[in-house]
């Protein structure tokens, strides 16, 4: 570098001269800020010298517990006792005071979601499900769902929302009852918890990060490494069919629930190509023809999304419960997949219509 930073040269020269000497060279009014900054600098210098010296010597190495690798000072500083004291105090005093009920507790929408029968217009209103987008941003096909305009935005009719949501819940519980695989998709930040919970309740699959395009149309490449398993009508694992699983084509969902269809056009398109019905939260600016069962509601409000995902999850849970009860009664609600036992030498073949792909009949 041709031009050298002159301050670098002059700065180090100034630093080696004592502070009193160079402040005398300045104007008569002494600048307090510069003195303070020089004091800060000298303090930093002292600390860095200290750390350099510490690195050289062996004596100041802190004692460490060999198992937890935690500093021994931390293990003895009394935090555990303080924490236990606080827990005991809370246990004693939590029940005191007034009980304000019912009131909105955000976490309960994920931990104890509402069921389809708990869906009321009041709940949807409180969850801001009626708030659409600016009137200029609307999709005209949504006019049938819109109640009116207020303060420049479209208001979605909550009766329509409730009706469509109940229909979607019936679809979800019906698919679950017949042993279908339901995929819950919600890729916006914050939707992870409700998507995972809904999938857990409906015993389906979840997706809360970007959908990899081609996961359905090109599943053999993208999902080929993901493991599958064979289960019976009681959801018990049936071992011994690993070779069958390797040959079996990659799984596709039987129903897809999408909480933000505007960001997941590719997923919905792939579902359309593969005859997979979809449920989606359709805002006033979204195209309702992208999904099979639209739920006109506000997809930008996390609270609304959690209510809808919770209701659909509960519907799936109910469907799974019905399926289990029917299985207990001996009624298998789905068409079993024929599995040949050519991989297991000597075991009898299952099912009357099974065609043995290895040729022996």
């Amino acid at each position, binding site marked *: *570098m041709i031009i*050298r930073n002159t301050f*670098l*040269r002059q*700065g*180090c020269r100034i*630093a*080696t001269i004592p502070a009193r000497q160079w402040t005398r060279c300045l104007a008569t009014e002494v600048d307090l800020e510069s003195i303070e900054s020089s004091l800060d600098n000298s303090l*930093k210098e002292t600390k*860095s*010298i200290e750390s*350099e*010296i510490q*690195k050289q010597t062996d004596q100041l190495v802190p004692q*460490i517990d060999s198992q*937890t*690798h935690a*500093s021994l000072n*931390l*293990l003895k*500083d009394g*935090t*555990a006792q*303080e*924490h236990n004291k606080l827990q005991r105090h809370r246990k004693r005093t939590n029940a005191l005071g007034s009980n304000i009920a019912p009131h909105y507790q955000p976490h309960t929408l994920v931990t104890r979601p509402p069921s389809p029968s708990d869906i009321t217009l009041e709940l949807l209103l409180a969850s801001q499900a009626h708030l659409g987008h600016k009137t200029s941003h609307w999709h005209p096909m949504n006019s049938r769902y819109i109640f009116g305009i207020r303060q420049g935005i479209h208001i979605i009719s909550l009766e329509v929302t409730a009706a469509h949501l109940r229909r979607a819940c019936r679809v979800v519980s019906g698919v679950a009852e017949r*042993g279908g*695989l339901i995929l819950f998709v919600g890729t916006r930040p914050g939707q992870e918890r409700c998507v*995972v919970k809904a*999938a*857990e309740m409906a015993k*389906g*699959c979840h*997706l809360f*990060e970007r*959908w*990899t395009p081609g996961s359905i149309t090109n599943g053999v490449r993208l*999902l080929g*490494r*993901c*493991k*599958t*398993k*064979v*289960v*019976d009508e*009681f959801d018990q*694992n*049936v071992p*011994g*069919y690993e070779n069958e*699983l390797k040959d*079996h084509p990659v*799984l596709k*969902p039987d129903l897809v629930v999408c909480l933000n269809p505007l960001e997941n056009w590719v997923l919905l398109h792939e579902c359309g190509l593969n005859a997979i019905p979809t449920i989606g939260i359709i805002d006033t600016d979204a195209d309702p023809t992208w999904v099979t069962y639209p739920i006109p509601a506000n997809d930008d409000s996390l609270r609304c999304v959690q209510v809808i995902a919770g209701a659909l999850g509960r519907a799936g849970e109910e469907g799974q419960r019905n399926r289990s009860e029917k299985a*207990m009664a001996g009624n298998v609600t789905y068409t*079993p*997949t024929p599995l040949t*036992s050519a991989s297991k030498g000597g075991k009898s073949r*299952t*099912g009357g219509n099974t065609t043995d792909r290895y040729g022996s009949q």
Partner: protein
Amino acid sequence: MATKLPFRLAYRSSIHCPRCLNRRPLHSTASKQAGIAAPPIDLNNLPPPNASNARIIPASPSYFTGLPDSTDKYLSLISLLRRYQTLPTVPPAQAPRVAWRTLIQYRLLVGEPVRASKYHKIIEVLQRLNRIHPSVLPAEVSTAMETYKREVDPYAVQKRPAIIDEDGRAFGVGRRKSSSAKVYLVQGEGEVLVNGKAINNVFGRIHDRESALWALKATGRLDKYNVWALVSGGGVTGQAEAITLGAAKALMVFEPALKPALRRAGCVTRDPRRVERKKPGHVKARKMPTWTKR
């Protein structure tokens, strides 16, 4: 312990029928078959799994993410954190030092091509879990963290100390652009040899001579040390700057307290700038050919 009751107070075998006032047996099994009720539902004692009603489902609910194992691990760590997020924590500097698995080791663990961004998210969660105060750390959390630790004791890694050898020499390495310099410093009168030659012959520019010995000049120790430098690669200025860094490192072996002064002088940081590569569509790294309207 039951005392033996008199016969009349024992179990009733017959009652008065309220309609016909006759006595009839309480439990009559004369005409109806017994044991018709289905057995109670027992989810623990189901029949053995059979393949006649088989269906194929994903082994994990994260099937459609394409990275099921990694996603499940992330979810389990997040749920663990959520459960214990109110426990007291320590500042990051006081948390136990842990060598987490590297990205490549993590990929080997899960057997999936995990992106670096997802790996870093998991490391963030682990670092937050590691910050839980050790005296209240639950056993569940420490066992969960074990899977992600490298099998190496981070406290066993000790930096090799920079020493002055038996001939009184301190050694430092400096690099700049594509030049690299090995610099030896000894207590002396201020003699300087670069590749065996006097500095005047090696560096024609005064600026380069000054840069090479900037570490000694800035701290006023030009007359206190002798410099022996072996430098190769690059050009004149690159070699001079490489010697700057090497000499500064060697000087810090003799006098560690000079580090802040050398830092202010600009001798401590290795200048990371390299020559930028030429790109297609450009004439040089940044220069584009002249724009033409047609």
